[in-house]
């Protein structure tokens, strides 16, 4: 314990010291140009061409229209394409891990997002809404947000990621519970030609990507991209829980991962059509759901595909109309190897197939109009029809069917938001959305935000939000015939109420600081529980939980590409009845990010340090703290268009573990040690 504390203190000291050194250093730098006139290039000194490339810090997802981050009715963080490149992020999970207050848990199949101290083991990322260019990605069976290698878009095609904390059900409905992650993909013109990329890394990992994008004038833009990834994964993974079954506790070649991701975007004037098709297959080394240990046959495939047609038209600068029609398809194919050897009989292994197909289509119509210069009103209507929600579970040979559950359902919603400029320094944003479900009826969720800017560079936000999450088809109906899991059609939606205060201060041009405090209360949380009667896993509205905490962040951006960010989060998520701290909920999170330009605009070092304090596992054990250090060296080579980057992840080979869920024998699952990646990018 003492050692852990000492380690943490040392870590925090290092973080604080590095940033404290940067501040005076940058102050010196800010002063030198005064003596040496006009050396410092500011916006005013930029050419028109350079200015056209300058990105303005805006967010779309917080209000469903483009607005400045300081005016958004939520606490917002942005990860840019530049961050993705310079910090060497391989997946969406990598990128989100760097964001203040967010942590990620990996069970060697899926990555699970933790926000505000909530990351319930067994929750399949259902409480965060994931959007790609405003299109909902969470499927209609598990309601999962895929953020690992199963995320359907190559991270290198991301222009920016908006992380909007807090409930946004008042705009988006279900899943927008703890927050919304809106991934905005690159414009065709941003590629401007052909890009080829290839990467090789530890665990025999190989990536390849070919993309083409162009704005052809006369309003026509086209982007086409295809990516593949293959990884052998860890050769050998040792789990002491299985050290007595003849395998020696080692799962061999059971961690492989492969995917493909296709993206097509076509835009013509006010219309844009996006098509995505992606699939990933992952071997499962943990022998989850009581399957056979040390086999390569237990694996899952997740496939996502969608077509999204969007029409966005501005009638004048006061009125904007957005219409969207979409069709989505999701496919899950799990193969689980079971040992069904009867006592005193020859060994018998059976492959159990666990499958799901989801199809849904729908549309959304939204009008944003400004009245009397003071009211910006957004009104919308949305309909979603789940034409197929099919779950199946059977043994392949001998054939035996446990589940064949076919459903369809529909829901619709109406929403209204008004952004009222009470005065030049005061904005009130009020939103309300009513959702109607066939299964449980209606729910209405408001959001209120008061944004006060007494001085330029000073922002106070007072936020209240309410959200719901409808139980998914999986939680309602899944049962595998009494093997591990049973259904619960009596589930109700879970509800959250949140209060948050944010204070942001911009100073000395280069710095942004923010301080926030929050209180979240969830009623009727849907959680996995094990029925004492029959020992089966079931979802139930079992808990009322609450979380409170605070966050601090300091961010700096300087000329020449130097930037840094330091954040600390304190959070305490507890069971409202017993006061017990929730499992998989670290009390402290600290992050440090730094990009150092080493050689003009040619060579950059991106460095990350992440700390999370110990978490409690389902069995009540402690995982111990985790310190992660990642570094990426990226360089523009002498050959125009050719870029090279080298990344090291978990550089100091820190041993850390994430809590397992009810389906795991392992109470805690060990994570990857040090690994590397080399990447080449060529554009022409």
């Amino acid at each position, binding site marked *: 314990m003492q050692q852990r504390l000492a380690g943490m203190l040392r870590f925090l000291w290092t973080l604080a010291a590095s940033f404290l050194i940067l501040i005076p250093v940058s102050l010196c730098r800010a002063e030198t140009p005064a003596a040496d006139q006009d050396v410092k290039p500011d916006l005013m000194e930029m050419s028109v061409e350079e200015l056209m490339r300058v990105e303005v810090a805006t967010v779309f997802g917080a209000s469903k229209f483009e607005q400045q981050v300081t005016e958004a009715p939520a606490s917002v963080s942005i990860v840019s394409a530049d961050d993705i490149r310079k910090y060497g992020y391989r997946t969406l999970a990598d990128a989100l891990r760097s964001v203040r207050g967010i942590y990620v848990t990996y069970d060697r199949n899926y990555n699970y997002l933790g926000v505000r101290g909530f990351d319930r083991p067994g929750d399949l990322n259902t409480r965060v809404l994931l959007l790609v260019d405003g299109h909902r990605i969470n499927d209609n069976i598990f309601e999962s947000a895929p953020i690992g290698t199963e995320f359907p878009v190559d991270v290198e095609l991301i222009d920016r990621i908006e992380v909007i904390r807090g409930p946004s059900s008042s705009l988006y409905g279900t899943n927008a519970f703890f927050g919304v992650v809106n991934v905005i993909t690159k414009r065709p013109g941003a590629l401007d030609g052909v890009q080829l990329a290839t990467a090789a890394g530890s665990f025999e990992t190989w990536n390849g990507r070919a993309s083409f994008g162009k704005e052809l004038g006369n309003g026509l833009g086209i982007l086409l991209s295809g990516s593949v990834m293959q990884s052998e994964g860890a050769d050998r993974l040792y789990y002491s829980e299985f050290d007595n079954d003849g395998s020696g506790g080692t799962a061999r070649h059971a961690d492989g991962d492969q995917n493909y991701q296709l993206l097509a975007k076509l835009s013509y004037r006010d219309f844009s059509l996006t098509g995505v098709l992606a699939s990933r297959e992952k071997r499962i080394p943990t022998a989850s759901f009581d399957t056979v240990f040390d086999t390569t046959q237990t694996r899952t495939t997740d496939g996502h595909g969608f077509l999204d047609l969007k029409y966005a038209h501005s009638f004048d600068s006061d009125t904007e109309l957005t219409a969207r029609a979409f069709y989505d398809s999701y496919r899950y194919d799990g193969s689980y190897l079971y040992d069904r050897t009867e006592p005193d009989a020859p060994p018998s292994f059976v492959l159990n197939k666990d499958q799901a197909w989801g199809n849904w289509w729908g549309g959304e119509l939204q009008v944003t109009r400004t009245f009397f210069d003071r009211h910006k009103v957004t009104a919308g209507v949305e309909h979603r029809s789940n034409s197929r929600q099919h779950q199946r579970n059977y043994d392949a040979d001998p054939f035996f069917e446990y589940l064949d559950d076919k459903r369809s359902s529909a829901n619709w919603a109406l929403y209204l938001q008004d952004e009222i400029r009470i005065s030049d320094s005061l904005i009130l944003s009020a939103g309300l959305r009513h959702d109607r479900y066939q299964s449980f009826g209606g729910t209405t969720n408001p959001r209120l935000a008061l944004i006060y800017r007494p001085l330029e560079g000073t922002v106070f936000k007072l936020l209240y939000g309410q959200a719901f999450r409808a139980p998914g088809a999986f939680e309602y109906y899944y049962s595998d015939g009494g093997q591990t899991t049973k259904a619960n059609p009596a589930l109700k939606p879970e509800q959250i109420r949140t209060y948050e205060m944010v204070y942001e201060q911009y100073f000395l041009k280069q710095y942004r600081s923010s301080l926030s405090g929050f209180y979240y209360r969830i009623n009727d949380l849907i959680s996995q529980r094990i029925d004492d009667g029959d020992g089966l896993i079931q979802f139930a509205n079992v808990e009322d939980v609450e979380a409170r905490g605070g966050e601090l962040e300091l961010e700096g951006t300087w000329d020449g590409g130097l930037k840094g960010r330091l954040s600390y989060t304190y959070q305490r998520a507890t069971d409202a009845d017993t006061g017990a701290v929730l499992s998989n909920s670290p009390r402290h999170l600290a992050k440090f990010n730094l990009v*150092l330009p080493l050689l003009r605009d040619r060579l950059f070092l991106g460095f990350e340090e992440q700390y999370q304090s110990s978490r409690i596992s389902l069995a009540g054990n402690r995982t111990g703290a985790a310190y992660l250090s990642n570094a990426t060296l990226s360089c523009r080579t002498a050959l125009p268009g050719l870029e090279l980057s080298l990344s090291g992840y978990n550089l100091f080979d820190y041993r850390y573990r994430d809590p397992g869920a009810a389906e795991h024998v392992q109470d805690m699952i060990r994570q990857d040690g040090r*690994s590397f990646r080399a990447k080449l990018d060529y554009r022409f």
Partner: protein
Amino acid sequence: MTLTSATDKLLPRPACLQRLAGALMLLFALWGGTGCWSVSAAAASPPASSEYQVKAAFLYNFMKFVEWPSDGLATPGTICLGILGRDPFDDALDEFKGKLAKGRKVVVLHFRSVEEVKGCDILFICPSEKGRLSQILKLANNSRMLTVADQEGFCEAGGMINLLFIKNRVGFEVNVAAASRAKLRVSSQLLKLARNVFE
């Protein structure tokens, strides 16, 4: 190609490594501080700027790339930017302090109505004036002022340069016909970069 793979030991990170990590980070910070990156000052980085800071910088560029007729600017020795309506720039216009364009000092003036506008070379028509746009342009286009705004349909209505805000970046369109009617010449460099040119 396996560069390294997870080994199976469950050892805590040795303290010396942790210290090394700390030392390295300090080193990076110090290294940066002693000026290693100061040489890179000329590189164009995308800092977090506000929309109107960028737009102000565009206005500054327009002063350089638009030529006023040979009988000169409104007031000799200065180049005057007029802001008509409710100023959305916050303190972004402070950046003009002490700036020179075409060898002349930049002056910023604020006006509440178009009738008050006098002695300006560039007139920025704020979003608050949208309802009165056609009336403003009728008066403004008579004097030799470059009219600029950031409103949909501005160029179509006879305005000269319209700033666009698309996908987080600022661009612009130019109504060359309107500019030449006021005997203003927009440089070809600028026209090349415009998203739309109305001839």
